[in-house]
């Protein structure tokens, strides 16, 4: 299993619904099983990324917060 991040998406400062919309747009470029890292500052994105993964079937592999930046690692379905 590859643990390399295929793409990092900087969503810092963006507000709803942009973090999710831009994530959905960006993940189209990746292959199945690829990992994408998303960095966001919108506190709503914590719940939204979880909901988005539930809805789309992509896997939320990792989630953390450092200095008010939320980091999500998603494995594409």
């Amino acid at each position, binding site marked *: 299993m590859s643990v390399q991040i295929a793409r990092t998406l900087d969503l810092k400062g963006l507000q709803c*619904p*942009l973090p999710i*919309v831009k994530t*959905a*747009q960006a993940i189209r470029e990746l292959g199945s099983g690829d990992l994408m890292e998303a960095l966001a500052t919108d506190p709503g994105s914590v719940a939204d990324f979880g909901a988005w993964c539930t809805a789309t079937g992509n896997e939320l592999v990792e989630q953390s917060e450092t200095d008010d930046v939320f980091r999500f690692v998603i494995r594409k379905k």
Partner: protein
Amino acid sequence: MAVREAELETRAHAHEDQHKHQKLVIIAWSGDLDKVWPQMILATTGAAMGMQTTIFFTFWGLFSLVKDGVHITGDNWMQKMVSMMDRPGMEHLKLGKMNFAGAGPKMMKHLAKEHKVASPGELLEMAQDLGVRLVPCQMTMDLLGLTREDMIEGLGEPVGATTMLLEAQDAVTLFI
């Protein structure tokens, strides 16, 4: 134990099936900035979530699809009067409250830019990129004298209420 596993499996399948049929239909009736905004936010989000998303534009909602350069629409003086009273186009929407002769929308757009909130126009482009179907209401187009030439590119064929309600039968439907 086996029963419990079977139950979980059934539930998982039900969940999958539910996702397969997820659809979102937005009836975009209003042309007010503070309603067009949520129309666009929910459409882009639905599409981003993998929902098959359709917006049916009717009555005042249709005017947000008019090209930016088009000021006056319609053939007769009554239809023209409507567009003269209320300039069509996504960049010229008024607020439903606190419009203050256009000062309200200006302030709102300024705030949005400052807070990195996407404008309805930007969201419309993203919606099109994500495959949201934009469907005008045929009857309202005729009533208001709007032609395909007045409107932006990339719209679906104009349809009637029946086609839209058929689409909405198995969809989450919102009237905004």
